[in-house]
């Protein structure tokens, strides 16, 4: 099985509604008053997050997305994750996708560590059977011990991260999306986490990671796409794009 990604003239436009555009009552008033109540009846401004993007990513590629804040990196990742269906153009993503963009997603501080593992793993698409098979391993990896039966709000930041990391990295997708490398502060835990993440990345066919870290990109990626204002500025082998973007 091959995994690949093809974007054909993909644009993603966000409508930005002002208070009137968001309001049903002012819409109705507009109709009732013949639209004369509001000078800006639609209240619509469009933000172009991605503009006419075309690219192909094949199996084996480790792609870094670089660019300044607001360049469209996150939007591109979410488009690849099928969260945003392009407003125009086509995005074809073949293969199972998993995103490690926000590993804290769905973590409820009032629930216990164990309950959170169940919810988080279910959100990631695991079945009840899968979860009960993996839960011992997840708990062991997180090194939380008996704390797993305590509400997450009693955890330290480090424990919180360990839990989120341990459960999020059980995925084995063909296409992996990341927003920066996951760093799990805890000194002792770091090596173990690093090894697990490398193993996960090695097992995927395509990695797409948004990053600001030159060191990381040079270590992990073999292709870099430089975005600015939703357009591709440069796309090519790591060395070439990195030195153009960060300087020699």
């Amino acid at each position: 099985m091959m995994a690949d990604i093809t974007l054909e003239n993909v644009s993603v436009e966000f409508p930005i509604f002002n208070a009137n555009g968001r309001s049903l009552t002012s819409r109705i008033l507009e109709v009732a008053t013949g639209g004369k109540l509001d000078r800006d009846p639609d209240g619509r401004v469009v933000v172009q997050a991605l503009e006419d993007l075309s690219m192909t990513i094949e199996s084996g590629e480790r792609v870094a997305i670089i660019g300044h804040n607001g360049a469209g990196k996150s939007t591109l990742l979410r488009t690849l994750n099928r969260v945003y269906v392009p407003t125009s153009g086509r995005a074809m993503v073949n293969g199972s996708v998993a995103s490690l963009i926000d590993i804290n997603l769905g973590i409820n501080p009032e629930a216990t560590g164990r309950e959170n593992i169940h919810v988080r793993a279910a959100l990631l698409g695991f079945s009840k059977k899968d979860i009960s098979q993996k839960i011992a391993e997840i708990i062991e990896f997180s090194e939380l011990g008996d704390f797993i039966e305590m509400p997450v709000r009693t955890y330290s930041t480090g424990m919180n991260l360990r839990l989120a990391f341990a459960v999020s990295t059980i995925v084995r997708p063909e296409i992996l999306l990341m927003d920066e490398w996951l760093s799990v502060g805890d000194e002792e835990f770091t090596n173990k986490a690093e090894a697990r993440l490398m193993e996960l990345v090695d097992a995927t066919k395509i990695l797409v990671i948004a990053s600001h870290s030159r060191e990381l990109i040079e270590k992990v990626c073999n292709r870099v796409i430089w975005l600015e204002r939703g357009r591709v500025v440069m796309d090519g082998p790591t060395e070439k794009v990195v030195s153009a973007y960060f300087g020699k």
Partner: protein
Amino acid sequence: MSSMLFVLRLSILLGWQDVKQAYRRSAIGPFWITGGMAVQVATMSLVFGLIFKADLKHYLPFLAISIVLWGFISASLTDGSNSFINADQIIRQLPLSPFVHTLRAFWKSIFTLAHNAIILPIVLVAVLQPIGLQTLLVIPGLILLALNLNWISMILAIASVRFRDLPPIVTSILTIAFYVTPVMWYPELIGNNTVAHFLLGLNPLYHLIQIVRLPLLNQMPTADNWYLSALFACVGWLVAILVVRRYQHKIAYWV
């Protein structure tokens, strides 16, 4: 594909977590929810029993069922209309079916209903309310009610994520609906007034409540109650499916 099963399982899990959340720090646990409803039933049956000069033996079971049922309907529609707004983080990160979020709100109200329903057997036994075979009709009644609540929630949820002033409007409409629908007053009270009869017949909530409430009171809902509830579900789902098809990809943009 197993995706329908996935949606069902995930929404039940999330809905159950939401219910647990409501009583997590309470010492009496789930009965915290039921207790509030029981107090409401007790005070309302006393006050309105006196106002309507109703015989408590008949009024108490009628009101208890109505209040529990209305609590379910109104919670499921208010939470339903907020279901995408509340799930904004998940929607921006994961490409889940929109039904996960509306069903999550639905299951939450179902689980709450299950807690509150404990009041009913107690009340029914206390007033020696007879039950018979037709009491079993409560099951198709509930299913038909649930089918209707789900399509309404889906349409409200999509509209609410686009028009953010809709959820408070829904709350206001539900408050009005509580008074114009025979929830705490007997439908028979309108007597022979043909206009009122006609208007009541047009109120879908009336029929939906009747198909659940009457079986529990050991009475048969009318054929009209059943037909109109079923018709409402079919037409509603047809519209809802069209709306979902048209707008499901917009939800992530609007949220």
